[in-house]
């Protein structure tokens, strides 16, 4: 049986007057039915653009797919007509976005917005769609859902709106749910509820999830596989336990070190990576991470490391990954205030 989704060497470049922005530069991964893939990286690492490219929601121009394939159940979506892609969007592949406050249309009722995909993809009439919208709202845990479907988005709280977004995305029972930082804009307590809701619904519906986040902690609970991105490129990819417990790339080490942990005393608990992600117009030579990498050598400054299998489907893009002695050590947390 073919994979549910197979992304192969995907490259999405933006052609701007200031130069070419390689927002997604050679991303590959596979996703099986019911699996969850966590895509992790800082701002501008290309994780959202990857998702938007799969959905073909990037305006072209300025965007342009330079290479790659996006195989959904074996068929290349990049070769499909706009109409064919449209029939998958919101139907087989649904997406929820970061900011629930602005992602719902303020002038339509919640129920109408949920029902819209049902009418579009399932051919339901107004009444059936409205009834199903009530069920969906109940499913995502909104009380009095029969009344609340008649509300407008501004009458919902942030967490409720994200639940409504999830209901909207799940309306057509999609094979894949892409969640682009679904909890970033929410309160911490609500974040946990939303993640819990998503995992629970995944168990029930069996959809696969692509969870995009800058927070490895979110992924830790739910992902089967993890893809770490930096400056548009994949830097580490593997099953979750490998990436979490046997990380190979210094950037992943940094990400893990910046997680709040319970087992370490407070002084060393937070150890963020120094510096900022690079501008995608002026990507550093060689390994894009080298200016921030405490282990960087002259080779790192001149040669771009390839993503290679270090063993057991565990990939990393570092010249020294897997070398004996090149291990995650305690990096001095210089310059970080109390």
């Amino acid at each position: 049986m073919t994979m549910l989704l197979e992304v192969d060497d995907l490259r999405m470049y933006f052609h701007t007057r200031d130069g070419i922005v390689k927002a997604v530069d050679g991303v590959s991964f596979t996703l099986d039915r019911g699996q969850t893939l966590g895509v992790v990286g800082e701002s501008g690492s290309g994780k959202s653009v990857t998702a938007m490219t799969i959905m073909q929601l990037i305006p072209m121009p300025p965007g342009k797919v330079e290479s790659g394939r996006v195989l959904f159940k074996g068929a290349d979506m990049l070769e499909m007509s706009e109409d064919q892609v449209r029939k998958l969007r919101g139907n087989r592949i649904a997406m929820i976005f970061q900011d629930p406050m602005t992602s719902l249309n303020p002038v339509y009722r919640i129920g109408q917005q949920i029902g819209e995909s049902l009418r579009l993809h399932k051919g339901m009439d107004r009444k059936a769609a409205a009834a199903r919208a009530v069920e969906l709202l109940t499913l995502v845990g909104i009380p009095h859902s029969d009344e609340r479907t008649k509300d407008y988005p501004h009458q919902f709280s942030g967490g409720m709106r994200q639940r409504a977004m999830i209901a909207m995305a799940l309306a057509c029972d999609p094979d894949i749910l892409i969640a682009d930082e679904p909890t970033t804009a929410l309160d911490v307590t609500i974040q946990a509820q939303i993640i819990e809701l998503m995992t629970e619904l995944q168990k029930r519906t069996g959809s696969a999830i692509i969870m995009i986040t800058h927070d490895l902690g979110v992924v830790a609970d739910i992902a089967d596989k993890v893809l770490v991105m930096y400056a548009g490129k994949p830097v580490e990819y593997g099953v979750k336990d490998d990436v979490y417990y046997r990380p190979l790339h210094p950037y992943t080490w940094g990400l893990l070190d910046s997680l709040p942990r319970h087992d370490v005393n407070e002084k060393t608990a937070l150890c963020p990576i120094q510096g900022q992600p690079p501008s995608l117009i002026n990507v550093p030579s060689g390994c894009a991470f080298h200016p921030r990498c405490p282990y960087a050598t002259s080779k790192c400054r001149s040669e771009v490391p390839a993503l290679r299998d270090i063993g057991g489907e565990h990939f990393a893009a570092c010249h020294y990954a897997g070398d004996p002695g090149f291990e995650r050590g305690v990096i001095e947390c210089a310059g970080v205030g109390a």
Partner: protein
Amino acid sequence: MLKYIARRVLQVIPVFIGVTLVLFLLQAVIPGDPVKMITGERAMSPALRLQIMKANNLDKPIPVQYVIYVNKLLHGDLGTSYQRGRAVRDMLGEKYPYTVKLAFAAIIIEIIVGIAAGIISAVKRYSFLDVLVTLSTSVLVSVPVFWLGMLLQVFFGILLKQWSGGQIYMPISGAGGLSTDFPDWVYLVLPAITLASVSTAYAARIMRSQLLEIMGADYIRTARAKGLTSQAVIWRHALKNALIPVVTFIGLDLGAMLSGAILTETVYNYPGIGLEIYLAIGRRDWPVVMGGVVLVVVVVMVINLIVDVSYAFLDPRIRYGGAAE
């Protein structure tokens, strides 16, 4: 919602008082003797003069005059023209229907042309049509209205007539009525186009910028992610949001047009209220000026009130009160 309307209505009161006060003060400081304006320049006895002043309340202190005036206003009495001796209310009542007709004709042009041009220009962004719309709106807002009127008169009234051997042309003056050359509505066409020009350009600009701004909104991305066609995204999701400010603008503009179009009415010698007030200013017929301006200001305020309330009605965020959090 009711509270909102009530508050909005209450806001009208100070503005109304302010407007009448400003007008009244203007009139009071105006150079010239009002009695002479009533009677002309002929000599008269002090007794007669006093009598005329008394009849017009001119002998009382200005604050008292103001209170008397406002009191009369509230009872629908706009006073009597100095020179014509007629009730201002009747004089204005004759002219106002013409202004109303002209305003609605212009608004129809503005709605159709302005909104359509704005949508086309936003949807076909960077295309030839977009450039054309953008440039022509810039030109239209810079054209003196009266000059545009003159150009239209020359083209449709003079050149067209010459080229067609006197067969085809448009009336360039008046409002029809007794004239049998054209049906009455034809007299509206050129003035309406002239009056609509600037506002149509603004309506198109607002429509365009609103639509473009909204096309970048997150909920438009959501709509596209649902698999809607780009037409459905534009017509169903973007337009409804983008129209709210445009409708507001057009509503306010209707108020402005109902307040008379001095320039358009002057160029076309169109017997509306703008021309009437303008002529009254020229002959210092203050009761007519005051009455006319008060009338149009009240109309503007009422229209603005209606626009505000319907804005609240169009936008559910206002209609259904504050957000849940």
